[in-house]
Every structure is written in structure tokens, then in C-alpha cells.
């Protein structure tokens, strides 16, 4: 699929239909719709157990106009490995068809319980695209903290308590783990930057055509319910995440890091924190130290990324 410069260039035909039960303001559907359009040709979706899975396949209904496979929570990458291997051998031996494999998993299913099967599949080099949509907690089970939950965020298992003000640990750097496997192409994507997202999917599609997988995308997926913010603020939060340098939009193309959205004058992190109920307690004076920690994390992360981007290739 070709690159775009404007959103009105996106085809209208949907392979992910309406009628699903994902929440208003959820970040997942626009990404999934875009993925299914920008990844051209025949395709198969593998879905980990997650919000996307339960909200789109309530028997006897389905939102999917492509073959869609849900096996379990922690094994989407392994399931995709099996499908890809079968596709390859059946193309050689019998009347097999070629198709592109797209995997969707949440942060719980990717950062935590599914990390081993993801690592195994990346190491073995199967030709698929894995998209982790990261809404920064186990939203499907009711907002429990995951390895993707940011520092200080209140969840139902890391509440803003009288002694411990939200999650005490920083977010796990999933992209670093993925890049350690030296995958051909990895990128972060964000719904506030849809043309960047489209063009990355289009690029992924070309890599898949050339059997240059595995490819990994880390998607910032706003969750108004879990983040306790108005449903109209999803894209605003997504944009602020980038503009505060909390969520860098970058890609690693065969080891070459490119920061796609340059943020020269970052906005104060407080602007991002104050619109979300999960962070509101951090703005109290007694939690100033947590915000300072978060600022140090953002700064070191951003500076490190700049240095890596200066290198010709990190592989």
C-alpha cells in the first residue's frame, strides 16, 4: 500500500466492522482499522486474549472480515509462529496460499504474560507483524497494573494509597527488549499522528511481502475508562504523551533509529498528568518527588534515544 500525506487518502473499505463493544474513546479501533487497510493483500489476524478479543467476537457475532484466530492470553506470538510455518510449508508442498499475519496483543499479553512467547517468535524470525496496543494496564480485567503501567499511575492493584502513591516502578522498555532481538523493523505508533502510523503500516506491509519479518509495533492506546478521563480527551492525551517526550515516536529500521516526531520544545509533564484521573494524586505537593522521578525518567529516555539515533546503526 502506498504512503499517504493526508488522511482522506485512506481507502474507505472496512475489514473491521462496526457493532463491536469497545468503549467510546478507546484507542484500539482506529489502529486496527488502519492496520487492516494499510497492510494490503490477503491477511490473517491472531489475537491474544484482551479487550480487542472479547469486544469483537461475542458469539455468534464477529467484527472481523478476515480470518481471525484467538488461542489464549500468553501465546499469540507462538500461535502466529505455527500459522506462519504452516503457510510456508503448504506453499512448498501443496496448494497453500500466501497471506500476511498480523498479531494484536495488549500490554499485559505482551509486556508480561506473553513476553516469553514473543521473544521466542522474534528469535526464530517468523514473518509476521506483532502490534502491542499498550493501554498501560490490564483494562479487560478491570485496570490492574502491568509492566507497561507508568510510574505513579493509580490502578486497582497499584492504587493511589495513603502510603504508596500509585505504581512505584517505571514502565518496562518493551521496545528495547524487542530491538535486542535485532528484528528488521520496529516502531512506536500513536493515534495523534495517524499519517505516521499509516506510513509505518504501509512500510511493514512491504517488509512482510519480502519475508522480512518479524516486525514489531508498539502502539499508544488511550483508555478513557482506565485512565479516568473524558472520552473526548483520548487523542489529546496521545498528543501530549508525545509532546512531553514521555512517548517518543520513532522507528528502528534494520538497526537505524529515526525519531519520527521531533519534540524540540517539550510541554511540561503536568499538562499530561492533570487530564487523567490515574495521575491526579501526583499533583499534590506530597507527591512532588514522584513527578520529579518521572521527569528524570523522561529526560534520560529521550537523551538516550537521541544518542542512539546519532549512531549509524545500533545492530
Amino acid at each position, binding site marked *: 500500500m502506498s504512503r499517504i500525506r493526508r488522511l482522506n487518502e485512506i481507502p474507505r473499505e472496512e475489514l473491521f466492522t462496526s457493532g463491536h463493544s469497545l468503549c467510546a474513546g478507546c484507542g484500539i479501533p482506529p489502529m486496527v482499522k488502519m492496520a487492516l487497510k494499510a497492510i494490503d493483500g*490477503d491477511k490473517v489476524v491472531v489475537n491474544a486474549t484482551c479487550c480487542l478479543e472479547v469486544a469483537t*467476537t461475542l458469539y*455468534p457475532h464477529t467484527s472481523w472480515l478476515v480470518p481471525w484466530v484467538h488461542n489464549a492470553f500468553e*501465546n499469540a506470538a*507462538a500461535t502466529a509462529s505455527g500459522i506462519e*510455518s504452516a503457510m510456508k510449508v503448504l506453499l512448498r508442498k501443496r496448494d497453500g496460499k500466501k497471506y500476511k499475519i498480523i498479531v494484536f496483543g495488549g500490554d499485559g499479553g505482551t509486556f508480561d504474560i506473553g513476553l*516469553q512467547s514473543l521473544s521466542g517468535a522474534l528469535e526464530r524470525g517468523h514473518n509476521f507483524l506483532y502490534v502491542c496496543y499498550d493501554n498501560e494496564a490490564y483494562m479487560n480485567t478491570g485496570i490492574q497494573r502491568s509492566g507497561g503501567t507508568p510510574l505513579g499511575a493509580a490502578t486497582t492493584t497499584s492504587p493511589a494509597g495513603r502510603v504508596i502513591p500509585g505504581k512505584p516502578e517505571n514502565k518496562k522498555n518493551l521496545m528495547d527488549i524487542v530491538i535486542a532481538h535485532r528484528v528488521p523493523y520496529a516502531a512506536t505508533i500513536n493515534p495523534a499522528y495517524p499519517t505516521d502510523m499509516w506510513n509505518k503500516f504501509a512500510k511493514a506491509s512491504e517488509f512482510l511481502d519480502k519475508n522480512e519479518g518479524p516486525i514489531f509495533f508498539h502502539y499508544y492506546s488511550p483508555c478513557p475508562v482506565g485512565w479516568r478521563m473524558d472520552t473526548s480527551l483520548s487523542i489529546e492525551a496521545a498528543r501530549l504523551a508525545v509532546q512531553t517526550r514521555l512517548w517518543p515516536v520513532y522507528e528502528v529500521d534494520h538497526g537505524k533509529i529515526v525519531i519520527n516526531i521531533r519534540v524540540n520544545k517539550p510541554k511540561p509533564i503536568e499538562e499530561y498528568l492533570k487530564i487523567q484521573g490515574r495521575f491526579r494524586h501526583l499533583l499534590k505537593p506530597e507527591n512532588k518527588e514522584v513527578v520529579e522521578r518521572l521527569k528524570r525518567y523522561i529526560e534520560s529516555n529521550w537523551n538516550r534515544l537521541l544518542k542512539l539515533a546519532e549512531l549509524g546503526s545500533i545492530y
Partner: protein
Amino acid sequence: MNTIGKQVRLGLNGDEAVAYAAYHADVDVISAYPITPQTIIVERLSEFVYNGELDAEFIAVESEHSALSAAVGASLAGARTFTATASQGLALMYEILYIASSLRTSIVMALGNRAFSAPINIHCSHDDAYAARDAGWIQFFAENVQEAYDLTLIAFKVSEDKKVLFPSIVNLDGFILTHSVEPLTIFEDKKEIKEFLPDREAVNKIDPSNPITYGPLALPDYYMEIKKQQAEAFNSTPARIKEVFSEYEEFSGRSYSPLKKLYVDDADIVFVVLGSTAGTMRTMVKKWRKNGEKVGVLSLTLYRPFPSREVAEALKDVDTIVVMDRSYSFGSPGGQLYMDVAAALNKYGRYNRLINAIYGLGGRDFTPEMAEDMLHATKDPSIREIWVGVRG
């Protein structure tokens, strides 16, 4: 007997025999993780693939959980799919066992039966086979290396059959069969078996021109009907399994049936057993018969679906039934096979005297002396459970 496929006689251990069967089945995808005592199976299959003798994808996964997960994907995508495991590996697969059955995959798994930890032990118990008993997998038990080979080929034909579409486990006793070299007859080459086992024709496979949603969410309004349909489908598989046994006999000259009986018809005492110990018991029963003991042996080649009617029919007039379990079901009324036999008899209105013999755990040798102990126990009406060959 005139058979169809050309065969050769040679010596192999059980693992190699299973590997040859998967090779002769011209399997498409192998997804496996090494674990004793099945490791030789995946080593041999790797050699077939890496030497170009078998055109298959070997997915060397990072765990048994992923082994079965990838196998589910491969089978749904239409590939003839094989995996092998044992003990802890089966336990790690447990979650996906039910999914593999409920998604109606056609995976064939060899299970080198091994005891569960702790203490860790690599030798034979039937803990793993029993752990999988409720998951909706067809289960065969091999008594010897020949059966391990034959049942693996049979399992592919059964599991891929449009009237079946359930995954199969072929059980072979760890070390006793997996690592013991025995003479057996196998097909000369994979082309010799093609007529019995042609390329898989998968129904409802992953196909972009026919998009299917596999593994949806079903809530209380549908879940129970789906399970009832699965139960009906699973319980109807023995009819087809028996037909495949006949087709295989025509092809190979070797005959199989859900259960094997020796002297059961007029016996006062019958020993019910799974796996390699059936051979030991047959030898013992022949010896005891010469001493005038009216004893018999019933062994099961098909363990799931449990052939309840045939078992009850065979045992209905037997005074004392000794059910041998190579495992222990903590806190249950008896061992797993004991409970199956008791329930099968009860279902057909029979309440025979049952003794549960626990034997051979963790590879403890089952000797003729232990068999004598079991026979001796049948003479004492107060005995209902014995642990044979155990100290203290």
C-alpha cells in the same frame, strides 16, 4: 496375510519408532521442545528435516506451552501437525490442551509417559496421560514399540478425519518403551503409506477467501450448547476409530481394537492395565492359568474416549477386578483408571469387587513378584487398595 504397503523389519526404540511414524506420515509442521524421555523423537525428526529427507517446518519453540500453541496455529492453517512431550511439558501445555480440542484441531502428540514432580523424576508414571484425560483428546496407549509406530500413523488418520477432528495423544511408557530397542515392522518409506494416509485435506482451515473467526468469546447464553456439541462429537469418535483400525489392518497386517483381552471370558479375576505392563501381566496370567487360577488380563489401547460399554461387557461377570494404576489420584476414591472402570461397570448396573493396585510409580520396575503380590491380595476379601513393590 496380503498387505498393501511394503514393509521392513528392523530394531528401533520407541522414540525412534514414533519419529519414523511422523516421518512416514509426511508431517508438515513439527512444533516441539526437548524433554526426557521424548527427546529422541524430536532429535530424529530434526535430522530428517535438516538432511532434507522430510519437507517440514520444525519449530524449535522456547517452551511446551508455545509448542502446543504453535501446533494449534499450524493445524488450523491446514498443516499435518505433530508434537511430542512428557510429564512437566504436558503440565505446561495444560491450558492449551482444552483449546486444541475445542478448536477441533488435528494435532498428534506423542507422550513419553513420565512422573510429575516433586521429587523430580524422569521415569515412567501415567500422571501426564491422566492429567490430559478430561481435555477432549483421543488417547491411545502403546504396549510395545511396534504399537507406538502403528498408533502414531493411526492417530493422524483418525484426528484428521472429517468425522472426528479431535487431537490425539499416543502414550508410550517412558524409558520402558521410549528407550528400549525392540524388533518391529515399519513401512519401507513414506510413499508406501500415502494410500492409507494421503495428504491432509483440512476442513474449515485458515483461508483469507473464507474468513472464519476461530476462538471467539461465548458467554452463558451459548457456551453450554457448544460444549454439548463437542461432547457429542467426541463421544461419537470410537466408531470411526474402529474403522481406521480395520483399514490399517488391511494395509499393514496388524490388528488393533479398543481393548485387548486374554482369558477374560471365563475369568474369576481380571487385571485391567494400560501400557507396557500389559505384556508382563499376560506372561503372568498364562503362568497362573497353568496352576489352575482362572485369571485374565484386559488392557486398553483406546483410553479416551473410554470404551465404557466394552469394558463393562467384558468384566460384568468377573468376581474380582484388579485395576492397575501407574499414578495416584490424591484424595479420590481410587486411581484414575480404577474410577473409570468402576463408573463404567456402575453405568451398566454392575457392582463387582474392585481392587486398586498402585504400581510402578516413577519408573519402579514392575516384577513378576509384584504381580504375585497382586494375585495374593485378591484372596483377602478385606483388601481394596494395594501399593505393590513399595517399602514400608
